């Protein structure tokens, strides 16, 4: 676990790390989790990544993560390009806005946040499908949205822990740089 975080910390750009999580999440979601589907449903790994990212880095980063993850998802299988980008951007930004108001240091709060956010994401997708005249009865909000939210919640602690370690590492680096600059200014 920590080896992965250390390796991620060495990557220079924050968005390269985000890219790694999105591509990795997509690969797991399209090639691994279909074989581990429960009642034909699989977790939304990309949404777990977006929510964890938004919780730690705030609304602007939640927006970027949602847009990037959604667009990649749309482009790999989409007839409706923009559908999942729209849902993920909205929810990613929304999670980022409320992130400052919740206690993020415990694992339980982000886990619950992932459950609520994934359900909200499935709801937005359902609304869009209805608008596009794709057959999606109202009962699907429960039969699809709820199980996917619960299944995704199981992955939240694992993903959040890794992103949190990277976030702490990034903050420590920033403090070191600020501290070094202040010391140099003091000496002068």
């Amino acid at each position, binding site marked *: 676990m920590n080896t992965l975080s250390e390796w991620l910390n060495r990557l220079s750009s924050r968005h390269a790390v985000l890219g790694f999580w999105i591509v990795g999440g997509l690969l797991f979601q399209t090639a691994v989790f279909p074989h581990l*589907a429960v009642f034909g449903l699989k977790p939304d790994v990309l949404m777990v990544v977006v929510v964890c990212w938004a919780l730690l880095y705030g609304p602007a980063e939640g927006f970027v993560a949602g847009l990037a993850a959604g667009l990649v998802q749309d*482009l790999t299988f989409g007839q409706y*390009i923009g559908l999942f980008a729209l849902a993920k951007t909205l929810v990613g930004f929304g999670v980022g806005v409320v992130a400052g108001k919740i206690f993020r240091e415990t694992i339980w709060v982000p886990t619950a946040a992932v459950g609520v956010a994934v359900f909200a994401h499935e709801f937005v997708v359902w609304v869009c499908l209805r608008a596009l005249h794709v057959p999606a009865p109202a009962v699907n909000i429960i039969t699809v949205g709820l199980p996917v939210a619960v299944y995704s919640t199981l992955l939240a602690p694992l993903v959040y822990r890794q992103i949190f370690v990277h976030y702490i590492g990034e903050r420590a680096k920033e403090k070191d740089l600020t501290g070094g600059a202040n010391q140099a200014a003091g000496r002068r």
Partner: protein
Amino acid sequence: MLHLGRYRKFLAVLVTLVVLVTLMSVTARERETVLLVEKAVIEALAPVQAWFGGLTVGIRGTVADLEAIRHLREENETLRARADAYDTTVHRLKELEIENERLRTLLGFTQAVEYQYVVADVVSRNADNWFSRITINRGSSDGIAKNMPVVTSQGLVGRISEVSANISVVQLLTDRASGTGTLVQASRDGGIASGQGSQSPLLSMMFFERTAEVAPEDAVVTSGFGEIFPPGLFVGRVVDISKDSYGLLKYARIKPGVDFGRLEEVLVITNATVGVGGP
């Protein structure tokens, strides 16, 4: 300016959402071409997806093999008995084929078309839980084109919905945006079989006539009316029959012949008559 700066973030979000909604409504229509960026993403990810998928299938297969070893002896005996029975059936079928040929010549019927197939491996599945689509490792460079029917030995799988040079996307029968012209093989009553998304393995067939004669276990095949699928491809068997609350429409739930959860290889029919537009 200060006020604008304060709301700049929300303005950016709003503009992006408007752009995404526009993009979604434009691409929702049936498209004849795939965007260049779509092709690039699909082609770039496919080899890694194939490797990941292969690894998972391999692990799952090994676990299944270990479980299967226990039942092998029993299964072997059953299969031997069944093979003997098949030998008899094959002889009977040969006789019928000759007789069929003779009667066709007598009535002046033309020879039935023999399909040409391209074999393809399943690379990955869609990431969401609303649609049912797969990607396969064959594309336009292998002679694949949009709307070609995709089958396995168990029956109809779906149609090609997007094509790039080496990769194609298949819209499965279970996709909620899919609708296939079908008929009950015995009574010849027709209808449209639609998918209900990845969480339901059954199709819903709405009959054109409320007096349609249909019973559980009846075989359902493609009608050939939709210009995409040729007639006679096996779709599945009727599970149960129902009517809407006003008694005006008749429905049947169909269990597809294909196990969509375990698709690993498929066949694309390259010489079926292909029309333009989605089912």
